[in-house]
């Protein structure tokens, strides 16, 4: 499942930034790729693709700055929703 999530995220991000391959731990914010619009699109993508609602307090750069952290965040949210 992790692998699947990672691939989906990668498939969304790579065309946006026109750079391949993107390392799982490359900080897309620090690299300077992320403008306001892209940030918004990234959040919307995650909500629509994985059927989750990103809460205000979860809008933390440490959840969104690289493929690894995004995967951990999404997996955590999905686990929680399964438990409920």
């Amino acid at each position, binding site marked *: 499942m992790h692998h699947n999530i990672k691939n989906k995220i990668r498939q969304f991000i790579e065309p946006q930034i026109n750079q391949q391959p993107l390392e799982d731990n490359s900080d897309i914010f620090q690299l300077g790729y992320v*403008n306001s619009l892209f940030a918004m699109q990234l959040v919307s993508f995650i909500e629509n693709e994985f059927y989750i609602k990103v809460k205000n*307090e979860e809008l933390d750069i440490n959840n969104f700055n690289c493929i690894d952290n995004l995967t951990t965040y999404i997996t955590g949210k999905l686990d929680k929703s399964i438990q409920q």
Partner: protein
Amino acid sequence: MSNNLEKSKIKCVVWDLDDTLWEGILIENDEIKLNKAIVDIIKTLDQRGILNSIASRNNYEIAQQKLKDFKLWEYFVYPEISWNNKSISIKKIAENLNIGVETFAFIDDQIFEREEVKFSFPNINTFSPEEIVNFINDQIFIPSYITNETVLRRYYYQTDIERKKQEEVYIGSNLDFMKSLSLKLNIKRASEEDLQRAEELTIRTHQLNTTGITYSYSELYEFMNSNEYSLYVCSLEDKYGSYGTIGLALVEEKKESWKIKLLLMSCRVISRNAGHAFIGALIELTKKINVKLQTDFIQNDKNRQMYITYKFIGFHEIYRHDCYSLLELREDSSFQIPSYIEVKYLL
């Protein structure tokens, strides 16, 4: 101050060609005669800073040539000349301009076309050519202010079109492309001559407005001359030319902290990351004098993008009541101004 008072002002008028801009059907080799009243309207709108575009079912090359012969081609931004449904054309124009269709007027002689567009976009304004002649001095076609930059708006969008073309053919990452632009953000305190543009920005900008509040000229004037507040404006330029004044920040400057009461950015410069550079410049200014940076935020249905921007820069909520939140920059925020934007402080 007021909330979204003038959201129905028209920003873009989309024209049909056959039997609207001119009499006759181009593709049927009719003798084409310009509708002079419509041409006058297009030029008037252009002077008012309202954009003109085209949604016409025609052959692109033939229509383009005809418009060039009439010396009208340059008046249109993102013209859509194809055999598509007009609703599709309008959707494309709105996406390219990055403005909502509720600020569009669509002019077509065919009621079928007007209805087709209206069906897809119930909040768009549609008129027949006869109607628009009578409506042109209606309030929705009169901008609140005509500033130096209003009349340059078409120019700004047209340089953007050139940029986009170059971006599409650019080989390399987005980052390399951004570096190739030589972006410069100039930040300064607003002077009286900036105030009308500042007011225009507060009225026109919704997606990237931190509070949804708009201020009038006289309110901004008072802030500008107050000791507790500073009104900053920023302009952006790159190797293709200027984007004009594209951002505004009203900052309450106290001894222990600065609070951004209002921050807004023109939607034309989102893809250039100017918002990050502008907020980054304010962060730099507060770091220099060792005060905290806070910001008011009033969440509405249009400005989540701005909220996300603040959060990802490293602001966190220290107070919340209903839609209002007070955000403060974390001391450990590692945010940096994007390396491809040079910030000049003209303070």
